[in-house]
């Protein structure tokens, strides 16, 4: 019934060429400021229908849980699904190529004008604002874990250890990941 006309539930495309992967992720790389995931979702699910909503959510969850930049992981998983190793390389390369070139060009230009008061000021404004964006992202991410007191506890310990005590990440992860997964296992529904 209506599920068929709903773009998010329709079956995804059956096949995708390596060049389509490259060009698609090239566009994703260029489309977002301060994080590209919302743009990636819109293009992959709604516009080109490479994946349906549920499939995308699966890929996203896995990408967030594995180490590495989330969108890079998304490109690897989708590239691999359609074209194996070549597809993963094409998708990831397409994603990173232009942003890397642009940001390095921007940095080179910035270095020329770094002494100009207005340029330094604009940068200070952007970094102050962008810090607020990250705090907002983090606070939104706390929503799904607020109900569970042990998850809140782990979150607080990580924050205190990393932000206030400046404990190296490796030690924090080595201590807290097993503990947290252990609690999750014992309290599994």
């Amino acid at each position: 019934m209506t599920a068929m006309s709903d773009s998010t539930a329709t079956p995804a495309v059956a096949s995708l060429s390596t060049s389509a992967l490259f060009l698609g992720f090239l566009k994703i790389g260029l489309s977002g400021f301060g994080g590209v995931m919302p743009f990636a979702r819109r293009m992959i699910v709604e516009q080109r229908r490479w994946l349906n909503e549920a499939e995308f959510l699966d890929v996203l969850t896995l990408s967030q849980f594995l180490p590495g930049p989330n969108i890079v992981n998304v490109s690897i998983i989708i590239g691999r699904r359609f074209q194996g190793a070549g597809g993963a390389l094409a998708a990831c390369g397409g994603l990173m190529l232009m942003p890397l070139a642009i940001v390095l060009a921007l940095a080179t230009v910035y270095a020329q004008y770094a002494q100009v008061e207005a340029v330094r000021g604009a940068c200070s404004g952007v970094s102050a604002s962008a810090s607020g964006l990250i705090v907002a992202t983090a606070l939104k991410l706390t929503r799904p874990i607020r109900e569970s007191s042990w998850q809140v506890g782990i979150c607080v310990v990580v924050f205190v250890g990393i932000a206030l005590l400046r404990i190296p990440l490796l030690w924090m992860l080595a201590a807290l990941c097993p503990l947290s997964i252990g609690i999750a296992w014992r309290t599994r529904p």
Partner: protein
Amino acid sequence: MIPPVLWELAAQFFVLSLLSIGGANAVIPEIHLRVVETDHWMTDNDFAQLFALSQAAPGPNALIVSLVGWKVAGVLGGVVATLAMAGPSSLLTYWVAHAWERFRDAPWRIAIQRGIAPVTVGLILASGYVLTRTADHSWSAYAITGATLALCLATRLHPLWMLGAAAGLGAFGLV
């Protein structure tokens, strides 16, 4: 002959790549710890400026890594740092993704996901804190951070407007 600093960059970000559970934003405090406090590759202020540049360009959050590499060893440094940050984790994802999807409903998989979630949230909160402390040196900077935070939580305004407005205020010497 490859300059030693490129090897060092590659080694640093190779390790960070595999530790970056929760994405690039989650390892910002660790990058700051290593490049500012341990290795003295740059000052606090340099780090804040690079972070601003990474947000002013389109693309993934991971670009802060490219800029740290650029600051340390030029354009080549930027490329090396980016490859080192993306490479190891991508290989891991490539190998794990397939197996992981087959165990979608396994209890151990769900336990791992529930266990990792609060760790990543804590890491990103820590990033917000470290960045705010690094970037904000005046009451007006804190006000911009606070205003951006409030707008993000209360409205659906696109973040680019907030970054643009903050850049404008800064350019006129108001930060």
